[in-house]
């Protein structure tokens, strides 16, 4: 018996267990769903009540950690951020993200993504190595300089853009929208002086030029990052660098912390006087 507001929906989940034969099959579970339940709630219900061997990643349940990327009804979503009712269907099909190796059930191996991310030097590089390694002062950056790359700094490495990218579908050596967008994020950061080095890392046969502007990555990104825009701006940097026209970017200056402090405020007047 279902109380009002609860509807039973079928979850068709792709299973894969290498320790038990390694066959890919689809298991169907009936889950009582209510308005407001996310796909992650459904998966947790299945794990708690129906099949505890179901493997999936989850952590923050609020679309900030990037753990729960899955393919729901053939489109990549964050399970915690996706309402069951938005599909307007009684059948929810959940599969692991494509274009990444599958470890078990819905858990994918994100190592290729992290390796490619590491490969593009995702950190600020300064000419003054000593200041970079043991900083004594801070880098100054205006709000305009921040807005050049802030949108791309929201990446939480969920892997959904890689699942959406058609080039990543066939080319395992392709750096992927995540790494390329982060490459641009660091090149565009005014505090960084290593963009020349970094551009040479993406100037190869499986780098920025294998992006063909399908823009599926931007469409699917759960944080609105727009990796496609980052990659096209990266291509502009690459083209200018190849033509020798790149502007000599002045890196953000180091600023000493302020030494003068504000004067201490006077003690406030007592508003309540106790009459003895």
């Amino acid at each position, binding site marked *: 018996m279902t109380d009002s507001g609860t509807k039973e929906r079928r979850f068709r989940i792709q299973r894969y267990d290498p320790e038990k034969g390694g066959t890919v099959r689809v298991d169907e579970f009936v889950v009582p769903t209510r308005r407001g339940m996310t796909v992650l709630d459904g998966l947790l219900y299945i794990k708690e009540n129906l099949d505890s061997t179901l493997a999936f990643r989850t952590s923050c349940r609020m679309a900030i950690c990037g753990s729960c990327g899955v393919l729901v009804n053939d489109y990549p979503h964050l399970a915690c951020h996706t309402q069951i009712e938005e599909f307007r269907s009684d059948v929810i099909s959940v599969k692991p993200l494509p274009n990444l190796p599958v470890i078990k059930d819905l858990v994918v191996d994100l190592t290729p993504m992290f390796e490619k991310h590491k490969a593009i030097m995702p950190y600020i590089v300064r000419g003054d190595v000593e200041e970079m390694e043991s900083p004594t002062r801070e880098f100054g950056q205006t709000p305009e300089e921040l807005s050049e790359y802030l949108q791309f700094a929201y990446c939480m490495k969920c892997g959904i853009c890689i699942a959406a990218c058609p080039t990543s579908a066939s*080319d395992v050596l392709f750096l992927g929208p995540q790494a390329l967008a982060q490459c641009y994020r660091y090149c565009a950061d005014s505090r960084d002086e290593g963009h020349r080095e970094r551009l040479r890392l993406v100037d190869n046969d*499986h*780098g920025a030029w294998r992006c063909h502007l399908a823009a599926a990555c931007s469409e699917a990104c759960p944080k609105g990052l727009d990796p496609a825009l980052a990659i096209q701006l990266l291509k502009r940097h*690459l083209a200018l660098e190849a033509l020798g026209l790149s502007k000599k970017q002045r890196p953000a200056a180091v600023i000493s912390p302020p030494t003068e402090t504000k004067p201490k405020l006077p003690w406030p007047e007592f508003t309540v006087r106790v009459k003895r």
Partner: protein
Amino acid sequence: MRATRFHLLHIVTAVLIAVFLGIHMVRQHLDALLYDSEDPSSWASMIDRASSGLWAALYIALLAVALYHALYGLRGIILEVVPSPRANRIVTWSLIVVGLAAFGWGTYVPVHLLGS
């Protein structure tokens, strides 16, 4: 910056194809507009163009840019399907050989006809 330069050439040749092919299309198919009484695909019209150095130059230029653009695009597609350094070498050199052979042959014909 080598890969970037090859890709920039891909884009430059794209624009040049549009220009040269535009001229070729106007000559071949919009002959009514050019008040040309002769059918551009007829033997007589072709003999006429064969003796013109300008047309020979146009055809050779169109062949060069089209071959580069097409073979670079094809190379990109093939490398996305078989991504490995060895495949890269084989595919790139095969396409260079095919491209140069096609260009050589495609240049020889109008030059030969120019002389005859």
